[in-house]
């Protein structure tokens, strides 16, 4: 049996990769994928806990998160496409007119 700590370490690694990706990436698609990565890291941690503690709450929350992530992906991609049509770039640093 794989110990819970292994799952959690994996989740932390995934979450860290995702977070660093969000903070460093200029590509909006990459940034978006990194967010998905962080969400799934959280999902992994919750499933691991749920399984270790033998309760189903974690599973329920994971389903909820998956649903929200799907909806978010749909809306987010739609926004990216709309912005791309206007600005012809997906470099996030160029989208800085809402400032000062």
């Amino acid at each position, binding site marked *: 049996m794989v110990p819970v700590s292994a799952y959690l370490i994996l989740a932390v690694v995934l979450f860290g990769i995702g977070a660093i990706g*969000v903070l460093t990436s200029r590509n909006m698609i990459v940034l978006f994928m990194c967010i998905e990565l962080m969400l799934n890291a959280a999902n992994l941690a919750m499933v691991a806990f749920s399984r270790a503690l033998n309760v189903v709450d974690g599973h329920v929350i994971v389903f909820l998160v998956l649903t929200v992530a799907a909806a978010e992906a749909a809306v987010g991609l739609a926004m990216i496409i709309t912005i791309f049509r206007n600005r012809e770039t997906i470099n996030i640093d160029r989208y800085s007119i809402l400032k*000062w």
Partner: protein
Amino acid sequence: MSEYLFLIPLLPLIGFLINGLLLGRLPRPVITIIACGSVALSLILSVMLFVELKSLPVDSRVIEQTLLPWISSGDFSVNIGFLLDPLSAVMILVVTGVGFLIHVYSVGYMAHDPGYGRFFAYLNLFTFAMLTLVLADNYLLMFVGWEGVGLCSYLLIGFWYHKKSASDAGKKAFIVNRIGDFGFLIGLFIIFWNVGSLEFDVVMKQAPLVFAAGGALITTACLMLFLGATGKSAQIPLYVWLPDAMEGPTPVSALIHAATMVTAGVYMIARSSSLFVLAPDALMVIAIIGACTALFAATIGLAQNDIKRVLAYSTVSQLGYMFLACGVAAFSAGIFHLMTHAFFKALLFLGAGSVIHAMSDEQDMRNMGGLKKHLPITFMTMFVATLAISGIPGFSGFFSKDEILWKAFSSDHGHVIFWVIGVATAGLTAFYMFRLIYLTFYGNERMSDEAKHHLHESPKSMTVPLMVLAVLSLVGGLVGMPHIFGVTNYFEEWLGPVMAGAHEPVSHALASGGGDASMEWLLMGLSVALVAVCIFLAYYFYRKNLKATTSLAEKLSGLRTLLVNKYYVDEVYGALVVRPTVYFSVFLWKIIDVIVIDGCINGMARLGGDISDTLRHSQSGRLRNYATIFAAGVVVLVAYFVFG
């Protein structure tokens, strides 16, 4: 009848409202009828109420009428109420009587002035305020009248507001009076704080119980009230506004700055006599200030060439007499002189107005002379007034002045020095008044040919008031003849019930018997003799031997310069008070206001702006910056909850 008391002040107010609100819309005859009619009705009512008051028994000669509550706050309550007692009866008769005559006179004097309606509206407002002042049954309502007459004085001094000197004089009068009013208010606060009421009868009854006689508290209160009186009644150190007030139309000088308003201070002190007798030190200060003012102003009057300025300094000097009387606790003598002075000084001013009118607005006596034959009525009436003010036996001024001098000598609060100053002033008064008469009505006609061509006696509306006042100046003193003449002093007896300590000096003088009576005859004789000498001197220098005048003036040129320049008091005040105030104001304006206050406000705004200017750059608009800060925040929070 007594229920109509409130109409006496109200009628002039109605006149003011009609003339004031319909300014310039009414034809002149209507304005005249409303203005003079309202005061005439007040006069008739005053006479009727005076008769009714006289019919009451001596001890209950009080008519009170409370109209409505005015202020009621906790323990503090003040009514709008009127009080008619022997003192206020004398005052309303003087105010409405002289006031009415001056209204009539103004019809002729102001006939060609474009501000005719405005003038009469102000005059009526003044009459209303003055009647409120003298009829009020409490100090606060009196203060309302007090401020009201001050306002009217300001408006009427600056009546010809297009003249810079007139509007300046108005401002000066108002500002100088503020200093006095400050003192008056402090006095009222002290009285209310200790007595708990401002009603005259309560204060007068309670004062001996509440205040320790001669104590610091009552002395302060009385001195503060007196400070108010020095402002309104033009005494040292606040007299400087009155000579400048001559910029106003001459009827105004007669009504406000000679007969009525400037005597308000004397009335206020007489009204508060029960307080003042508790403070002998304050009485002493009043007597000293009064005597000094009388002498000081009389000497300035010697060297003035403007006919109205001579009279203005004479008024200051005569007011000094009244305060001298109050200061020696002879309040009824002060009020007596107030009354006779109202007659003869109003007459002198109106006569001067008639002269100025005839001379086409020339006021310098050096350009007059020989007017006797051109203005016979003006000359005759002014001559009567001059005899009265000089104190020639038989004329009104003689009786009142003599009573003051005798009281200054004989009263418990008196002193022989007061008598000497008083007599010296009487001599100077006779000298400068006859100087005025000789310069104006006798000698060569020094006016220009054109002015000479226009010379004319004034119209009936002006000469009739002159004649009435002349009769009053002649006989007005007979109501208060001294005891040594073997008659009753009706005036003193009439005021007796309202004057504190009124009976003491009388009984004192009577009790000491023949010795005092012969002393009184002697002093009277001395003062009359001095007056006669001074009249002769005036005759010698200004009629008989004009060369002697010039040579004397050269010999005493230093003194003369000092007198012509009024002892440089205005200059000293300017240097000591006005200029430092101006500099201080400029300091407040340029440094405190512009730099400190504006600097603080603008500095706060600029500080906020500068901080925001720096901080707004954190709003870079870059998503990754926000995410970094957000992540850092999360790390800090987690660290706090895990390790904290």
